[in-house]
């Protein structure tokens, strides 16, 4: 079916060079460079409107940068690439949509093919295995519209994994999840990524649930990006340089918060994380 792609050690799975993306003259991504290696877990952090979802569209080949190159395993980005698994930011499901958890996951296997699905043992087995892998087997026959946010998120991750991707793109999978479910989803993705050697890029507002699992962080702001280890990116000088005005990185009980600095006019206002909210809730 799918020809296995050989990944040599040290070869980047995703290589983005000097891309520039514009919407009606407005530059959303400017001179962004990203390299992701097999099996890496990358947290993609940044304020609203920083261009995180746009970056995913570019990687998926749905949006062409006006400048620069995007290569996935050495090939130009192109939509329909089975090497990329994708979980979009929002899913609006009618509570009564006649679709069970297993139907949603099965769409990941062959939802892009024309025609009606023929019942097959192999198909069912693969779906069942994937449901078990994301710990969703117990609600396999429940209607998707009535599952919780965390349960739906597991199913979306399962459908994205069914094409045997080498790169998994998750757009804000933790928003709308309570803290416990958020940690569960993060641990699940990180475990599967390690086991199968899949590189993961996970977009999050709050980097704190990712701190224990992410290898590197990609921080987007003001159209620019910095990438590196957590301690090299979450520094006053690095992020102030990125934002173009002073920002401060606060460490509170092992948690990280980025807030507007002294002269920025948005003093003390958290710039991208909702950790204040979640802390208030605990």
């Amino acid at each position: 079916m799918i020809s296995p792609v050989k990944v040599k050690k040290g070869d980047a799975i995703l290589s983005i060079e000097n891309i520039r993306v514009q919407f009606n003259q407005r530059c959303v991504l400017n001179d962004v460079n990203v390299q992701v290696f097999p099996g890496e877990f990358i947290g993609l952090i940044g304020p609203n409107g920083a261009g995180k979802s746009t970056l995913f569209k570019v990687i998926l080949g749905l949006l062409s940068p006006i400048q620069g190159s995007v290569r996935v395993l050495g090939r130009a980005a192109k939509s329909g690439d089975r090497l990329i698994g994708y979980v979009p930011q929002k899913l609006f499901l009618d509570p009564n949509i006649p679709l069970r958890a297993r139907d949603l996951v099965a769409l990941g296997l062959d939802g892009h093919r024309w025609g009606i699905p023929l019942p097959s043992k192999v198909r069912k087995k693969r779906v069942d295995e994937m449901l078990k892998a994301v710990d969703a087997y117990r609600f396999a026959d429940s209607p998707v519209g009535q599952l919780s946010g965390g349960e739906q998120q597991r199913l979306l991750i399962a459908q994205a994994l069914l094409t045997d991707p080498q790169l998994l793109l998750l757009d804000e999978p933790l928003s709308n999840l309570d803290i416990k479910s958020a940690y569960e989803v993060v641990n699940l993705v990180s475990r599967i990524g390690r086991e199968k050697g899949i590189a993961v890029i996970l977009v999050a507002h709050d980097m704190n649930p990712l701190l224990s699992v992410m290898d590197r962080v990609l921080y987007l702001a003001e159209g620019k990006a910095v990438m590196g280890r957590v301690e090299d990116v979450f520094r006053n000088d690095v992020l102030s340089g990125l934002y173009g005005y002073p920002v401060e990185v606060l460490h509170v009980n092992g948690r990280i918060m980025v807030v507007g600095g002294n002269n920025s006019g948005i003093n003390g206002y958290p710039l991208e994380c909702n950790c204040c909210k979640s802390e208030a809730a605990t």
Partner: protein
Amino acid sequence: MLDAGIFTQSFMIHAWIGGTIVAILSAFIGFFVVIRGSSFAAHALPQAGFAGGAGAVLLNINPLCGLAAFAVGGALLIGYLGDKERNDVITALTLVATLGAGALFLGLTNKYATGAYALLFGQIVGVSSDQVVATAFIGIVCLLCLAFLYRPLLLASVSREIAEARGVPVRLLEICFLVVVGLATAIIVPVVGALLCFSLLIGPNATSVYLTSSPGKAMALSLLISLVTVWISIVLAYISGWPIGFFVSMTGALLYACARAVHYFRVKNIRLKAGIIQC
């Protein structure tokens, strides 16, 4: 009165065949109309078809041609001009523009009573054998198209973004689907009428989603409900001489109410068992 003629007279045989084809087609089209939330388009297209039918009556050509031309034209208009945000506005404009044209065509023709009344409220006795053949042909074409579009359409209904990322040409797919709905309404309208076509498209599926959550079972159940609705309506229309559209919409509404009731008591039962409601 109920007599053997209901099965033996040639116009009734045509009615049974035409009604059955229309019931099968509505059940499958309705499944996607309901899960895609395109009820508004499914409401507008039969009205566009009606205008085309009225125009055809005026020009003295086969109403089916006018119906198909306007319903498919309306589908293309909604498909091309409408995007995610402005879809409703474009659909509404298509609806009022074609209804306006329909009013004009009606005003200009003097066959108001017979032809137009049938287009609005449906008439089972008027189906000719040519029309039955055309209905069967269009019905089969629509079903084959729907089977071909099935999986990508389901995926795009769940998430447009995932479908796009998987390389599905989502916009083209949506336009194709609307054209199939338009074509289907062209054969549904003469049987149940433009005003009540909607009830056959929406009713059975809106009912079945309360009874099952498996897509295959939901479609099978809708098919059953749709057939029962149409068959009961044919019998009642034959006996009473009233318009069939009346019986289709009443039966549809009644079955929907029953499904809601069953659903309500089932959910309550589950909650009771789980001890969520304490009595």
